[in-house]
């Protein structure tokens, strides 16, 4: 196969790979949600993950660098998916999904599901 012939095939394979990664990411988000629900059922005494801690600038400055970058990007928008944040930070979606969920666990960020997508947001009210 010549170089010219192989280019469209490579593009097609990359698109297919991208779709597969998106599918896996969606499944991983579902698993994280399920795990949190199960934790609530099995340990009802445990506080819900969101404690409503303020994500003010002093908190932002105290976060480790990798979480601060994610938190700052989220602060600049009203709500965002991990993909939206990865486009702002230039880091991969999987890493941003992990960092956003860490911020949820720490109680600074909340999340909600809209169809297939998980949206993260800071409750400023």
């Amino acid at each position, binding site marked *: 196969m010549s170089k010219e012939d192989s280019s469209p095939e490579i593009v097609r394979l990359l698109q297919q790979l991208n779709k597969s990664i998106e599918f896996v990411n969606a499944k991983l988000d579902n698993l994280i949600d399920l795990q949190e629900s199960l934790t609530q059922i099995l340990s009802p005494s445990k506080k819900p993950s969101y404690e409503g801690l*303020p994500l*003010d*600038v*002093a908190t932002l*400055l105290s976060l480790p660098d990798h979480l601060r970058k994610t938190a700052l990007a989220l602060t600049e928008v009203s709500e965002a998916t991990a993909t939206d944040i990865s486009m702002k930070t230039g880091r991969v979606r999987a890493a941003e999904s992990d960092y956003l969920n860490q911020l949820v666990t720490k109680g600074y960020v909340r999340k909600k599901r809209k169809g297939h997508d998980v949206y993260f947001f*800071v409750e400023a009210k």
Partner: protein
Amino acid sequence: MTKTIALHSYKGGTGKTSVSANLAALYASRGHDVCLFDYDFRAPSLQVLFKTKIRNTLNDFLEERCEINDALHDVSEKYQTKGHLYIGFASSSTDSMREMMAKDRKWEMKALHRTLSAKNELCNDGRADFVIFDTSPGVSYSSINALAASDFVILVSKMDEFDMEGTKEIVRGIYQSLGRKTGLLLNRIPTEQFPLGAGQKELEEYMSKLFNLPFLGIIPCYCDIQASGGKYLFAVEQPKHPFSQALSEVIDRMEKLLRTV
């Protein structure tokens, strides 16, 4: 696309308010639409310079008593600038200043979101080419909220040791932590001690290396500006004044840096 610039310093008395007001006026004179916000809620001073009837303040906006457009005051006609020059004033009543001191972290988080939404609104409706924040010195919530909402920080410093040591620390601890691009501006430089001219390039290189920041300029200490007590907007009232000329050069130097933010 709207560019947001914050002027900040480690210590007070570096001339941030003078520089920010004149910078805003210069941009407006060049035909840009500019919003200048007084985010020095501990010691507001833009009302002294612009002397206009204030309807709503930025305090009202942050407290959700009005929208951002209600807190903007158009002074373009007064100064006959080509572009619009809008000013957002901080309340100068002692009650308001005391109230701002007593705010908790949740309120400050809300203030950050209000600040960011104001910036986005001004950007989206195309009302401003530049949003400029004049901040209070050192580390205060309102200043860091303004820095977090900005694309670029002008760090204003004098040449004294106290100022420079603290300045190095806030560069590392705040600007770099927030990932904000920063440029250094030396202001109120006594030319008897630091003669400009032939030695200026060496001084610029030394300071730029010391702070590891791009250099925006050196503005000497002008007695007539000190004597005016903040009554005049030199950039539009005396455009040939060396202070106005020096600020004009600062804008030219910043242009290249702003393209990358």
